[in-house]
Every structure is written in C-alpha cells, then in structure tokens.
C-alpha cells in the first residue's frame, strides 16, 4: 500500500514536471485587416534617428546612472549604442547588424559578451520590429493595436497600445513565460517615447528606466 502511494506521488510529480515543460499554445491572434497592419509598426522608428537617454538601472539591488546614446538605421536593421559616464566618457560602444554584434569598446563592468548581447537585444526589442510579418493582429474599437509575432524557438513578441495611451512590448519564451517587458510612455517626440521602462525577468532580473533627453533629427 505504502509502495503504491509512493508510486502515485512519484507519477504525480513527473506529471507536474512534464506539464511545466509543455510549450503553451501558439498565438491566439489571427491575421487581421490588412489596413490595420501598419499600426503594428507604429511604435518603432521608420526613419534614421539618434537619441540620448538618461538611464537608471537597477540590478541585484544596486543602482547606477548613465547616459545612453543610440543611433538607428531601420532600413538596414542597424543599431549603434553607447553608454557614457556623466563626464561623457565612453564605457561601452557596440553595433548590431543582421550579421551580428560588433563591440568597439567595453570597459569593466560592461565588458562581458553576455552583457553586450543582452544590451543589444534590449535595444533591438525597443527600437526594431521583429523581422518577420506578425502572425496575428487586431485593432480594438478604441484604436489600441494588439500584434503578435512568432520567433525562433517558439518565442513570441507582443506589441500592444497606441500613440495616445502608450505601448507595451512583451517577449515570451517557448513556454509562454515572460522574459522581458518594455513600457513606453509619451509624449512621443519624433516618434520616440519620452519615458521607457524595461524589465527583464529571465535569465537575469533587472530594470532600466530611460528618459529621453535629446531626440534627433
């Protein structure tokens, strides 16, 4: 009897574990009206741009304050990002192209390949739409757009909002767990949000608050 109960518990545990590993269902959205599709890209800059942000980062209980400079060429899906000290000295300088990431300069503690990848992924999530067409989209009656892209490894990116109410960009892994969330609030200047908050949940937890201080052109 005891042996049978132990077996039951073991099987139940295995069932729970296996359930946790099952990918959640694919996108619930379907392709919407073609004339609404451009709305899925409204939050992303479409012309070459550059920006300066004040960054406040919270990682593992510590906080730091830096300047972030980003330049984008949306047509080439190219981004260049710099982190600067208050005096304007460059701590990190990297460029992201379709072919990969090139780090020009990285001063400790910003010098690990994982940091470079993570930062450029964050910048790309914020400023570049996924390269494929959305798997589904719809426009709510109040003008809110809801769009979803499917990515590699069953990951998904959801963009929701409007220029009036602000936007939220969410990325989930293949199991449906939220990896990153970006909230963009207006006013939007030259298409760039004045205030941005990025939260990362996996594999490392951190929060970055960005305030636009110099949009251009």
């Amino acid at each position, binding site marked *: 009897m005891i042996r049978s109960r132990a077996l039951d518990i073991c099987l139940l545990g295995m069932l729970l574990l296996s359930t946790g590993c099952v990918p959640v269902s694919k996108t619930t959205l379907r392709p919407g009206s073609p004339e609404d599709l451009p709305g899925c890209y409204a939050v992303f800059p479409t012309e070459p741009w550059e920006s300066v942000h004040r960054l406040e980062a919270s990682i593992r209980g510590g906080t730091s304050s830096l300047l972030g400079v980003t330049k984008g060429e949306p047509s080439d899906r190219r981004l260049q990002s710099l982190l600067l000290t208050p*005096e*304007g000295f460059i701590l990190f300088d990297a460029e992201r192209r379709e072919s990969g990431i090139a780090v020009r300069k990285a001063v400790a503690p910003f010098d690990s390949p994982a940091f470079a990848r993570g930062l450029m992924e964050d910048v790309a999530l914020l400023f570049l739409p996924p390269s494929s067409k959305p798997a589904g989209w719809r426009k709510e009656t109040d003008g809110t757009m809801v769009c979803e892209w499917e990515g590699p490894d069953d990951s998904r990116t959801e963009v929701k909002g409007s220029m009036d109410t602000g936007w939220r960009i969410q990325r989930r892994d293949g199991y449906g767990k939220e990896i990153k969330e970006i909230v963009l609030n207006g006013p939007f200047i030259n298409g760039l949000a004045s205030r941005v908050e990025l939260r990362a949940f996996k594999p490392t937890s951190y929060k970055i608050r960005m305030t636009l201080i110099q949009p251009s052109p």
Partner: protein
Amino acid sequence: MHLDIFEKPSESLWVKEIKMKRILFLSVLVTTCLLSAAPALSQDWKSLKEAFGNIRSVKADFVQKRFLQILTKPLVSEGKLFFYIPDSLRWEYLSPLRNVMLQKGNTIQVYNFIEGKWKPEMTQAVEARRMVLAEISQWFQGRFNESKTFRQDYSPGPPARVTMVPGEGTNKFIQRIEIVLSKRPGVIDWVEIEEPGGSRTLIEFRHVEINSSFSSEVFEKP
C-alpha cells in the same frame, strides 16, 4: 547572432584609458578655472604662478558640450564647480545626469541622484577620481610648466590662449587642449579638448568667482 570584438586591446587598457581621460579632463577644468583668475593677460608662466599664489577659492558654473561622431548635435551638460585650497573640490553635474564628486583632504565620495535620492557610486570610478585629484594637486599650485603630462604654450594673442599638448602615451587619449581667454581679465571664452578619432569636448565657464566665501559643507554633503 555572432559577436565580434573590434580593436581588442586588453581590458586593463580600456580601464586605464577611462581613468586617464578623467585625470586629464579634470586637470584641464581646474587649470582653466585657475587661469581664469589671472588678473591680466600679458603674463608669462612666472607671473601666472605668482597670481595663483593669491587664489584661495574658485566657484563657477559650467556648460559642457560633448561632440561625438555618433551624434549630429552635441551632448550638453551643465553644472557647478567649487574649489578651496589645498585639496577641497566639488564637481557637480546638474543636468542631464545629476552626479557629484566631493573631495575633502584624502576623502573622495561620488554620488548619483537616482529616484529622488543621492546614492553613493560603488564602481571603480571613485578610484579613478582619486587619481585625478593626485594629478591636479600640482596644478593648484600653479606648477603648469612642471607637468610631465603636458607641454604648455602661452600665447598673449589676442585672443590670449594656452595650448596644452600631451606627451607620448597620453596622446592616445587626448590630442590637444586649448584654453582661450577673454579680453576681460579673469574671464575665459572656452576650453576645447580634442581626442583621437574626432570626438571633442567644449567647456564654457560662467559666473566665475574668485576668493568668494561659501560653506565648507559643499565639500562634505551631496
């Protein structure tokens, strides 16, 4: 997506570069303030050094424009400087980032203003700034032409200017520094710091006050 590291010097070289830039940068700023206190323009190094002997304190506002190749418009910062002989300094950025470095004697503290509060900076930048202050101590005493880092030339103009050219090694970080003095005694027009690769920094000091009184708390609290 693969990751390339361009012009891969050792990590310590990059850290050294940042430290060196900070040293040179603040050296120039303090030198500039002290030069602005010079009572007349037609001076040689000897008379400049004598003039510096009368300086007890410097207080000034500044506007800094950082020209980077990535940006079409310069990055503009504003702040305040307080200095009291021999080794008390407050160097504060008010915008776009609020950040302050405080030195009193051998104690150096750096704070960032985050989420409505001053929070101490925990990075190695504090150590870099300690190096800065060790370097500038000789500038405070007017010993410009004794520097091993720069070769200085004074030109009476007009406009009067001091050109500082770094020696071997340092010129990897800074190519040239130019301090242009105004016709009005005690006032400078601008300072320009040129770096290899095309980046440069332009600093304008405003409301420079020499030997004015202020509380010593400015060197102790953010």
